[in-house]
């Protein structure tokens, strides 16, 4: 008996943040069986995310190993991925791995935007209410809005002095 293709696809992990499955990350949008072909749809987190090809290869590999002879991976661009789609389980997994999970994404860059003026500029310091994922202290400071991958900012805890990654709101 072949397994549920959704369950198989759900277990594929993000190559950059392997504590997250594609479902935890919110990039697996649809898995369906059409005749003997599994069609899995994923959405990019960032336009230039180099992990997309690996996700595609891993989906093909896992589903083929699970007994599905034909696998097709499609890209879904709309609606654009938001960090709000990272699940509660995903957020807990990020924390357990020493990463800080994103807060709510700003609304004026999302599909709900209704006003017609320019998207608000932020010239002052970026302030997020974060806690250090290692020691739990709220005394943190932003080192850079751009970190080791497109989706992360770099922070430092001013109590335990450890640096940590924060998954950015987008």
């Amino acid at each position, binding site marked *: 008996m072949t397994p549920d293709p959704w369950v198989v696809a759900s277990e594929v992990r993000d190559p950059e943040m392997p504590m997250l499955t594609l479902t935890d990350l919110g990039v697996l949008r649809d898995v369906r069986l059409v005749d003997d072909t599994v069609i899995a749809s994923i959405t990019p987190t*960032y336009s*230039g995310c180099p992990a997309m090809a690996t996700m595609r290869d891993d989906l093909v590999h896992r589903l083929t190993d699970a007994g599905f002879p034909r696998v097709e991976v499609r890209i879904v661009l709309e609606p654009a991925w938001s960090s709000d789609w990272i699940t509660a389980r995903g957020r807990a997994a990020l924390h357990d791995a020493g990463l800080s999970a994103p807060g709510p994404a700003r609304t004026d860059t999302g599909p709900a935007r209704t006003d017609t003026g*320019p998207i608000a500029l932020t010239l002052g310091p970026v302030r997020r209410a974060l806690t250090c994922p290692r020691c739990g202290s709220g005394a943190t400071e932003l080192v850079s*809005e*751009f970190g080791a991958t*497109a989706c992360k900012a770099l922070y430092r805890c001013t109590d335990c002095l450890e640096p940590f990654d924060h998954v950015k709101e987008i």
Partner: protein
Amino acid sequence: MDNVYDGLLEGDSSQWAFGTDFEDPLAGVDTTVPAGVDGADLATYCLMLGDDALVLSQRLAEWCSRAPELEEDIALANMALDLLGQARLLLARAAAADPAVVPALPSGSPVPAEDALAFFRDAGQFRNVRLAEVPNGDFAHVVVRLLLFSTARLATLDALRASVDTVLAAVAAKGVKELTYHRDWAGRWFVTLAQGTEESRRRLLGALDSSWPLRAELVTAHPVERSLPGVAADQSAVAGQVDAVLDQVLAVAGVDRPGKAPLAGVGGRTGRDGRHTEHLSRLLAEMQSVARAHPTGRW
């Protein structure tokens, strides 16, 4: 064994990071040209937006290992990657809208359409604004260039979210989120350098003075844009938003708005028409040389 790496992987090529072959960035996406829209014009418009991103991405990549601090080096590389991703989607959209824009390659070449557009066109076929192609200067220069570029691109992509071309609208909706971070980064550094030392302010004002004449091309409607109502962003609305944001940054920074006139085109033709500075062909020579030497190569 012919290839030592095959032994390491025991024939399982999926273990290579980032895949082993090309893939279509629009796989499964409906790329039908909307009814009543001219595919050739749509392709040209996508080339404008895609070439802006591609050429500036290349310039930003040249900063790699040269920025004054590691964090800023990483920031510039991140922004280059975002723009490269946008370029890839937009060039793929151009190729799908009008396959005639894609350069012909030797039969059997595995090079996908978006790579053929990136690596096998000459400077005169690029549609990017000249602001994207001029050589890197100092750190103040990259701050000013990114402020001018990302302010205009963010307003343009924001407007494009309502485009009747659903592919363009979706690419724009993603890009808006990315460009918001780019513009904030540039705006904050602009203020920091303006209010820093005499030297940082002197360099910032110099960079603004030299870049300002290149700004107009970003917010001037090209005939191709005017021929695509409902598809292309309305540049008059974009220009108003751009002015508002730039005035806000200039006011906080305590910097006067430059009065320099836009850099003229050649016979009225500018980067959008394929008339570039001499710097673009040198940039392309470096960017394209390996791909052109191996038009049937697999990477």
